[in-house]
């Protein structure tokens, strides 16, 4: 996996930790976001934040289809949207 995917993963961990008001160390990148309690509509918050961060346009449902931080990071990396 590319460096940028790693960066992205780190950034996503930070984001998710902030949504959950948790320590980033507690966030696993392989656990489904739903398990953390980020429900279907909350995923739109994340989508918006990613769009602003990467300056890309995404399907709002991106986090429904890529359900873990790992999967998301990988997907975003393939978009090459940096």
């Amino acid at each position, binding site marked *: 996996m590319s460096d940028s995917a790693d960066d992205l993963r780190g950034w996503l961990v930070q984001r998710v930790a902030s*949504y959950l008001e948790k320590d980033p160390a507690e966030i696993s990148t392989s656990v489904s976001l739903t398990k953390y309690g980020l429900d279907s509509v909350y995923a739109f918050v994340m989508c918006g934040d990613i769009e602003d961060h990467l300056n890309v346009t995404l399907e709002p449902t991106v986090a429904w289809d890529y*359900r873990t931080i790992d999967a998301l990071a990988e997907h975003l990396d393939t978009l090459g949207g940096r």
Partner: protein
Amino acid sequence: MSEMLEKLLGDPWDPANPVNHAAVVAADERQEMFAEGERLLDEYGLNAEFVPVAFGGRLTGVDRLVRVMRSVWRRDPALGLGYGASSFIASVNVWAAGDDGQRRAFADLMLANRKIASVYHELAHGNDFARAEFAATPGPGGRLLLNGRKEVVTNLERADSMVIFTRTSDEEGSRSHSQLFVHKADLPPDRMTYLPRFPSSGMRGVQLGGVVFDDCPIPDGSVLGTPGRGIETALCSFQLTRTALPSMMVGVVDTGLRATLRFATARALYGRSVAAIPQVRSILAEVYADLLICDAFGTVAARALHLLPRETSVYASLVKYVVSKQLIDAMDRLSLILGAHFYIREGVYAVFQKLLRDLGVIGFGHAARVACLATVLPQIRQLARRSWLTADEPPAGLFQIGGELPPLDFAALTPSAAGRDSLSTAVLPDAALPGEVAVLAGLFADELGLLKQDAAELRPRDLGVDASPEALRVAARYATVLAASSCLNVWRAGGGDPAWVVAALTRLAGQLGRGSGRLPEAISRRLFDELLDRHGENRGFDLAGLPLPG
């Protein structure tokens, strides 16, 4: 079209009309659907209103659909829901996600005057439909088997077909549900058991049913769209229903207002008519303004479904939030004028208490008001950042009441507006506004600026189910700004006497704590006079103000 339907149904106040208010009340007392009303709606072919023209129906614009349906709702909400809207709720899933064959099948059933139930709700999960337990799982032969229960569903038993919301995967997440389009005739008779009817305090004629499925096989090809996309389909479909249903119910308050005016003009107290009491007049004028607010917001949101479909996930939920409370409050205030005549279930005004009971469903039915705010919150920071105070002007057609619209493009609806909102910024005043209107518009522009700051400061947890009341209030205030922008721009587009828009904006500003919400004497008088005129001329109280029979 609504003229034709109005004519067919006749003057509801006419004692000789077999489908008058008294007959509607009598059906309610028997807890039955109003049979004569259903017969006439069959004759009119009301279902065709829910079927796009491309499939042989008459559905062109959602605003037009709403107008037609108001003719039904203003007479009998139980017909509105139990004859019409419940099939409409089912239909949008099919137009949004079905394939051509499914759409055609749906259209054919509708055009043959059949009923189709929209089967979402489980008592154990209510608004949290993502946790629905009802499941469709592949059986031995690969066919889907249905298991589980659905409850409090309109027409469940008498419908020929059902659109069922079901879990299709065990996985958590938002890709685990689907809608099914199922015809009862295709099901083995012993795998489906109806539950006893659920009686209710309003909508008493509507047959609320339940069902339990036990390993019930369904035909292949029953899933609407790609399996697993059910939540997405629901969130898109809801945009039509959350917009259209509350807006249809404006018809209920039209009759409520008409009943109250009849009472107030006929009743003599202290040697003059009740309608001459200044306090009564001022309440009636305010209720009229509130009704116009609901119509303007609902109509603009309905037109947005055609013109700005990528924005309507926000507008639809907020229409439901605003209109539901405005209409309930309107009926409550009117009930106090009717006094004892509201409280009794006989006589000329008996229809009022029925309407008031029926209208209750607007608050929680389909989705709780607060759940509507919760739908918008996750998007709100993005909306604020990307659109508020900076968005481009919306297309002019958005505000042209009755203007032509392009056909609905269901594929363009999206579960999130992704920050797009051109309606709120349109509230900004410009030099062309008359002073009084400009001042009022300025209040909302100011509010939008504050909201922009407040939205930016929301904590992450405030964007989800754990939102604080203050965060929900941000969404609610935003809803008020959208309603105000709708009123302002509908008036800008249509022109004419600004009295109503001054009244509407004054009322809405009051909800933001900007002023008392009470109408200035001169405005109140103008609205009341207009109300009396329309009542005398027998015209609708909504923006279109079309003539009514009788």
